[in-house]
């Protein structure tokens, strides 16, 4: 289709793009015609959820916008990162700070706690994801293998025995290197692997010890904003959502995108699995949360309201999956009923955008971080 005239070539591309958009819309319309809001119809029978939450703790300590947070598996500690380059480890229950790490870069977009609770990973505008040891680390959470011949032992550079009074920057391990900012990072089911999502449009799986790239996943047409690993241990899948409005499901074995969904009208900021691992929810800048099912291969629910205009930065499910929490740009946390599609509640407390939201591992509380520099724990 080589066209000598550049002008007509660009118009033909624009026309083709328009046609592709129209086709996509028609496809979605047809899909919709077959099954209109089925989930909410079927969900009309069960009782209405009565859920009230109050802010139980306010964690103040950051001097700039809080960008990301993660819970430790001991259900008590949180790591949070902020715009000024500081990463803080909190004991949430006692509302005290345990450790402070100062990074030379600003805008630390992503942070994660290792399953053992012995290290944290963080990354941001420096295009790198680094792993740091945590001061207070107890081995009770390391989950020793029960009846197998292999035991999980922390081998390598990151271990509590290496922690000394020296500079924390000397103990850091640079694991991931991307060509653009890191938007999300998380450990896979152990301390030795990290999954990162980056602004260069790719996700990657890294080995912590050797800092080697194990697998990279290309397919998004623009920045990837979030990635989440399937909660089922046998699941080899993970999902990612990006600025190209697509949510993709990847197989880690083959590094291929096995399913992709595009019904959002704007960037997807956050993706989270449903607790059983068979569906997932995405939150986007177009002010809607949408739920997609893997087996049905389509969007099965859309949570939106006419009066909610602001985009969503983060979503999470409660333990049962009955409740969805959304962290919105209008400073509120909106609480939705998953199967009825109605808004249960709105939690007011933050004084600026709520940038991140995460449920604790046992589901007794959730924490939200905001651009007003505080973190709030709600229960």
């Amino acid at each position, binding site marked *: 289709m080589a066209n000598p005239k550049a002008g007509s070539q660009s118009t033909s591309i624009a026309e083709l793009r328009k046609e592709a958009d129209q086709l996509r819309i028609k496809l979605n319309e047809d899909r919709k015609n077959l099954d209109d809001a089925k989930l909410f119809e079927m969900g009309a029978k069960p009782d209405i959820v009565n859920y009230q939450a109050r802010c139980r703790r306010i964690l103040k300590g950051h001097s700039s916008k809080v960008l990301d947070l993660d819970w430790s598996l001991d259900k008590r500690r949180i790591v949070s990162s902020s715009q000024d380059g500081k990463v803080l480890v909190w004991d949430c229950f006692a*509302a005290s700070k345990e450790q402070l790490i100062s990074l030379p870069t600003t805008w630390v977009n992503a942070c994660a706690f290792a399953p053992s609770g012995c290290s944290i990973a963080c990354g941001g505008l420096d295009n790198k994801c680094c792993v740091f040891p945590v001061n207070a680390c107890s081995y009770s959470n390391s989950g020793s293998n029960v009846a197998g011949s292999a035991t999980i032992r922390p*081998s*390598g550079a990151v271990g509590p025995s290496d922690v000394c009074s020296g500079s924390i920057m000397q103990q850091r391990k640079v694991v991931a290197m991307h060509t653009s900012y890191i938007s999300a990072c998380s450990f896979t*089911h152990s301390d030795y692997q990290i999954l990162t999502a980056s602004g260069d449009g790719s996700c990657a799986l890294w080995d912590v010890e050797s800092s*080697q790239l194990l697998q990279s996943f290309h397919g998004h047409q623009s920045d990837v904003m979030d990635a989440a690993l399937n909660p089922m241990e046998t699941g080899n899948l993970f999902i990612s959502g990006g600025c190209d409005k697509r949510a993709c499901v990847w197989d880690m074995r083959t590094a291929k995108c096995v399913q992709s969904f595009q019904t959002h009208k704007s960037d997807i900021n956050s993706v989270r699995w449903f607790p059983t691992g068979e569906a997932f929810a995405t939150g986007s800048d177009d002010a809607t949360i949408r739920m997609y099912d893997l087996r*049905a291969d389509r969007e099965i629910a859309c949570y939106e309201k006419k*009066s909610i205009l602001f985009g969503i930065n983060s979503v999470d499910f409660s333990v*049962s999956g009955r409740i969805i929490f959304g962290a919105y740009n209008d400073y509120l946390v909106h609480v939705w009923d*998953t199967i009825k599609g109605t808004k249960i509640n709105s939690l007011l407390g933050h004084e600026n955008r709520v940038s991140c939201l995460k449920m604790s591992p*046992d589901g007794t509380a959730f924490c939200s971080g905001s651009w007003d520099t505080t973190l709030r724990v709600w229960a």
Partner: protein
Amino acid sequence: MSKKLSQEALRTQWQKALEGVLLKRPTDLIVDNSTFDLNDGVIIDIKDLEDQVENGKADTSDVAINLKHPPRQSVYTKLSALLVEMQHETEGVQTFRQNFRALRDTSCKVNCKEREKNQKDGVPDAFWTTELIRWLKQVLNIECDLEACHLATMLCKTGYIYPCNVQWNTVNFKISEPDGNMVFRYQTPFYWPNESQFPLDQDHASHLLMREANNHGIPMDEYEIMCLSRLKKVLKHQWDCITQSALTQTSFLEGCCPSDQYINAWQNYAFWRVRRPPAYYKYICKAESCLNGPNRNFPSFTETSIVPSAENDKEKKTAMSPSKILTSSCKRIITSCLEREEIDPFLIKDESFFNPWKSETIRNAWPKEATESTGPYKLQCKAWGMSFDALLKDELGQLTFEKHLKKEFSEENLAFYLDCIYLRSAPLKELEDLIQSIFSEFISPNGATPVNIDTQTLNAVKAEMKTKTTRFVFDLALEHIYKLMKKDSYKRFPSSKLFKETLETAIVPQKPEKEKGKLPKIWRLSQFLTKGKEEDPERGENNK
């Protein structure tokens, strides 16, 4: 009187737009792609503005071009559309002409409303808070007052409307009740939030200088004074230019009528309230610091509207019957939600369950870790009964399941499963050894504890091992064993004696007894540890 009217008529609609009053209302909240014609009235054409410029229908110097939709923040489209809706003559927010002198004197509110009918020089197109809230509730179907108030506050904080003659800032400003006496105006579209335009420090400086000279009844606050002194240092070499431009602007405004002066002052004030760096932003006084994070590479934003046509209707009828897959998916989700409500701490109906976060004292409130000796917690145990994956993920669950399997003489299945799972996330350098050890122990028929897999799977695994040794080498066998355990051993597990006993004796987190004596509560303690006031989330004004 008649002279005034004709002057009004002569005022071009363009000027009205500059003052923040737009005339033409689109048919729907989503602006349709109709022709952009200056003679009809100024509308916000959000889509395809580039096309308009190309086709010569709109002038590049148009103010409207500045409204070019910033692709990332689609919220601005919606807010702009909402604003246009609000400004409709009959169905929008009811406005009136506000006597600006009366605004200064807050005591005569009642008289103002009467006087406004006969105003000659007053500030046009102002509206009360009550009117705004009423309209929002009606148009957006909001039931709750607070919600509408919050939305109105957000409209103000993002810079679409502003309160007249009130000293406010984006941190503390709040429309807390619908009956407030504040008066608002629309911000001029030129100043609407726009991500492609960055307000410059020089503009900020000249604005502050003008405010210093004449603040139109709103005194400068501490932060503005600090900003000004900072900017003086930073922009030392340009200061003469800035002062000159400030003087020119002031002298120009002096020629305008008083209401225009006030409007201009309020507009600029509102614009800079929204754009200036927040007070806690300590290091630089940059107006650009309204950075929203790293620049995103987005594809060009095209919002094509869904046009329902007659053809689609026909296709509906001939379409297939509703897919059964979807129904089964929905059913699955609903049943799992309802089943799992039992183990969800937010929805649990059991009165005896105690959520440690809800306690008011922290000492002894945190439940101890469940170890082998203490046994699992009740919720934990219930979760094992519901989901095989929950059982396998949990340490105690693994132990319990192992005991169960021992009775069935198939505990090597669990051991194999756990090792394979570990292999998946093992460090790279351990890979070789692990694969060998797993193979020799579980797969190889000469091994110590071979798992029960059929020959087909066995041969497939062996073949895999020869070609490439990756961490997914044993996946076929793993899937086989997993399904075996799930359908066989796990099926008998919840009804087994072992599980039932464990569930019976499972511990429940206890609510700590009220402490006697004066022990410092967490909120008091924290006040000693940190500087400044620590806001206590639980003790509001009512809990005393």
